[in-house]
């Protein structure tokens, strides 16, 4: 199983179409590095993206440099995955 330790899901609220487009650019720049859970659509909808731990510093810097406000929705994906696997194992027992 792939390990997602330290990977985070960031929620970004774009203020306008220009900021949305900057988020869309991320997919073109790093298609395998940023995984949009909710892709850029319109300013009223938040964008959720999973960012690998190795890319977090760069992506957060990109967001901050373009004035894109973000919050951390999931601090460490692996913690949730471990809980999920434990629940499945417990259910099987």
């Amino acid at each position: 199983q792939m390990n997602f330790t330290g990977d985070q899901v960031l929620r970004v609220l774009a203020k306008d179409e220009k900021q949305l487009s900057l988020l869309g650019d991320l997919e073109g720049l790093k298609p395998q590095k940023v995984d949009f859970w909710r892709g850029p659509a319109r300013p009223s909808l938040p964008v959720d993206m999973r960012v690998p731990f190795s890319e977090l510093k760069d992506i957060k810097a990109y967001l901050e440099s373009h004035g894109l406000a973000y919050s951390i929705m999931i601090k460490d994906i692996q913690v949730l995955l471990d809980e999920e696997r434990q629940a499945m194992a417990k259910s099987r027992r």
Partner: protein
Amino acid sequence: LERSTNSFSYSSYHTLEEIYSWIDNFVMEHSDIVSKIQIGNSFENQSILVLKFSTGGSRHPAIWIDTGIHSREWITHATGIWTANKIVSDYGKDRVLTDILNAMDIFIELVTNPDGFAFTHSMNRLWRKNKSIRPGIFCIGVDLNRNWKSGFGGNGSNSNPCSETYHGPSPQSEPEVAAIVNFITAHGNFKALISIHSYSQMLMYPYGRLLEPVSNQRELYDLAKDAVEALYKVHGIEYIFGSISTTLYVASGITVDWAYDSGIKYAFSFELRDTGQYGFLLPATQIIPTAQETWMALRTIMEHTLNHPY
């Protein structure tokens, strides 16, 4: 593997093998009303299975429900399994469901993307696409919800094979999509299609590829409103609703657009719980509440379909 549906935990997530084993037991235990149909094979040669709920008769009008076209959306498979069990439990007890099943057949495809789903268990929990590979292309998989022959390759899909929304080389290039197209087309009497995704808590109707409203937009809007109200009454969970392109985003080559363009007037797409706290990693403790509320919305759509023949 769990050997009887009585010992199956509906409040847990399960592997592909467990679900397929459950299907075999379920069909055996309810052979008067449920049968299993293999409609094709996946890219990696897994069986593509559909449950058929029918009280008899030939070529009844039918309702299609699919879950798990995006493999990481585990809550959808779990909701589908619970729903299948709900149908056999409530037939003969719930007047609305009984009326529906006496007049119509219901088809449920629980694991629409079996290769991707197996991969989420074995290797990468967050895998979305199928597992098809092509010579000379480095990246794996096609987004099965961009591979349909309706606005194929348009806005909201991607030509880059490494993208999560890669539409594939041609419409219906993927065996998982082609199997459904062939089955529904050959049947020829589907009246409703409901494709279940997660997450975002939304109920939507066509189009995804166009901002323009469909011809029966008012009817679909009113029906979606009724469905989310029925859903809300169960656990107080709020859904937003509207057309896909105006509610979520523009997306081309999607299931419900194809269904609508193929003459299936009641085409809906769900995005189940939650709104982002857990996203695709919704805890198993939320499976049953999610399924319970989704059932009331499904029932509302199916009842409307029954009462508005066309």
